[in-house]
């Protein structure tokens, strides 16, 4: 056991903090072939990220309730655990044991398939979210493009559930969701494109690395302020958060495509929308707020302390700080989203489409051209 630990330690020192290699070394130390070690490794990060996202949802639901209450001078959940911290768990349990209703004249196959199709792409998109240099499931080359592609599957699920419910409100909600999601995908993609143009890579890891050359000052938010705003507005629209929550506008559509859903199927929608919110916040922090980067570069701190940045202790501390920074930035954005929810009234459908097509789209195109021009003019500052 001691020798395996030693091997792990050496692996950590050699490769930086790459958990996969150290895990493989550990299992090979026990006496397993490397292919089986690899197979055993594969599901681990996925499970970890799935759990992390679910816990993130619980935290976000609690925050949403508490912050909403505070903004309205209420108390919010109080009795379920200290400060109501177990309230989301209680909500989840309630939804879990509720009767699973399928309306008699609904299309039961599509009705069941809809919420699944909404949730799966959102969870799949966590594939590319980095919490550190090696702390992501897969550093695929198409990186951020994968997220854009996957998020375009979601409207099909919404349309499916809207249609299958056999309810006019559901159908209208589904159609609205699809229209909204298609129109805001374009400015979103253009805003991402401007960032990608500066980092010369679609990979999220490269995008973050390119922002962390000079700490806080090199974050993309200062180079792409307009892009940041466009991305944030579009992300809110994609998540159906409040200024843009037309698909489930209570006053007109009861609950939109969720109207006929109850129990676990409704919980899937609920989960999907919150995971999507966290994911969008994570991607904003990755694309514009320097991801796992600390406002002061870690290298600078280690140099001033006279330590080598490759020392294992420093590596572990840096990775921890990275995770904390990512989560902190993400929840700052979640907080902003909740605050916006109680500040802005819902837009009308024509205003929504006007904003998407007549404002955000031209602005994001101009932003893209401007970024290209700046990249040619100042290749040092804008990624040559």
């Amino acid at each position: 056991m001691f020798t395996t630990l030693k091997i792990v330690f050496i692996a950590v020192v050699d490769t930086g903090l790459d958990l996969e290699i150290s895990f493989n070394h550990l299992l090979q130390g026990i006496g397993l072939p490397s292919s089986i070690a690899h197979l055993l490794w594969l599901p681990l990060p996925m499970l970890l990220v799935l759990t992390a996202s679910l816990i993130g949802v619980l935290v976000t639901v609690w925050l949403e309730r508490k912050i909403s209450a505070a903004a309205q001078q209420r108390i919010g959940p109080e009795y379920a655990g200290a400060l109501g911290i177990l309230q989301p768990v209680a909500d989840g349990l309630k939804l879990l044991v509720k009767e699973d209703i399928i309306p008699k004249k609904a299309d039961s196959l599509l009705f069941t398939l809809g919420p699944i199709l909404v949730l799966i792409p959102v969870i799949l998109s966590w594939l590319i979210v980095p919490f550190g240099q090696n702390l992501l499931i897969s550093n695929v080359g198409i990186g951020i493009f994968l997220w854009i592609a996957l998020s375009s599957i979601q409207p099909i699920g919404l349309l499916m559930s809207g249609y299958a419910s056999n309810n006019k409100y559901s159908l209208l909600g589904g159609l609205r969701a699809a229209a909204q999601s298609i129109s805001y995908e374009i400015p979103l993609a253009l805003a991402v494109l401007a960032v990608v143009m500066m980092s010369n890579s679609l990979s999220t890891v490269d995008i973050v690395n390119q922002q962390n050359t000079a700490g806080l000052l090199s974050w993309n938010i200062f180079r792409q302020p307009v892009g940041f705003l466009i991305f944030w507005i579009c992300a809110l629209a994609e998540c159906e958060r409040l200024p843009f929550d037309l698909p489930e506008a209570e006053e007109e559509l009861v609950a939109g495509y969720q109207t006929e859903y109850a129990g676990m199927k409704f919980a899937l929608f609920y989960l999907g929308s919150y995971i999507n919110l966290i994911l969008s916040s994570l991607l904003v922090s990755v694309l514009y707020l320097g991801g796992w980067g600390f406002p002061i570069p870690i290298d600078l701190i280690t140099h001033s302390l006279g330590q080598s940045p490759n020392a294992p202790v420093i590596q572990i501390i840096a990775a921890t700080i990275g995770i904390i920074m990512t989560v902190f930035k993400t929840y700052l954005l979640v907080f902003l989203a909740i605050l916006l929810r109680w500040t802005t009234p819902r837009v009308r459908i024509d205003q929504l489409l006007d904003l998407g097509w007549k404002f955000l789209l031209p602005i994001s195109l101009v932003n893209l051209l401007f970024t290209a021009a700046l990249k040619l003019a100042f290749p040092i500052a804008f990624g040559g």
Partner: protein
Amino acid sequence: MVTFFQKAAEYAQDAISAGKYLLQGLAVTFDHMRRRPITVQYPYEKLIPSERYRGRIHYEFDKCIACEVCVRVCPINLPVVDWVMNKETKKKELRNYSIDFGVCIFCGNCVEYCPTNCLSMTEEYELAAFDRHNLNFDNVALGRLPTNVTTDPSVIALKELAYLPQGVMDPHELEKDSSRAGKLPSEVLIKTIDNDTASIGEKTQ
């Protein structure tokens, strides 16, 4: 071309001002977050109803002369006055009296016009029942006194906004002897009496 640039500039100004207003709104919401919650946690905390609160009607059987004024002034002739004429004494004898609070609109006309003041408004407002027929109160039920919010040991009584001191919005953790904004009626009366006597004094001089 110039008009195009003018339009673009106007558009940009509009966008900027929209952003400014949005930030202003966010600041308001953010500011609200540091204020204390004004929630009254109902079954455990209750507001003290105001002095003229029109709650469930209280009725005293012994005072009633069965004149049926309450029935006549009631918008829907709701009170049921069940009396018989006693031939020997040539007086009405009241047998039963009831008001259905599932139908009553608590306008208070009956209380206003009752010649013997046997009807009065209480502070009770918790009339929920599982069966609407339970809301038909007979003279016994009408004669019961409600539990007072201030005397109920299981309830924390809170003052309503109008009864709080000046500038205070939150009824929780009030100082013990704090009184409402403005003067009490007795204080106002003393002052006017003083003024009156003073003015009378001036006149006599």
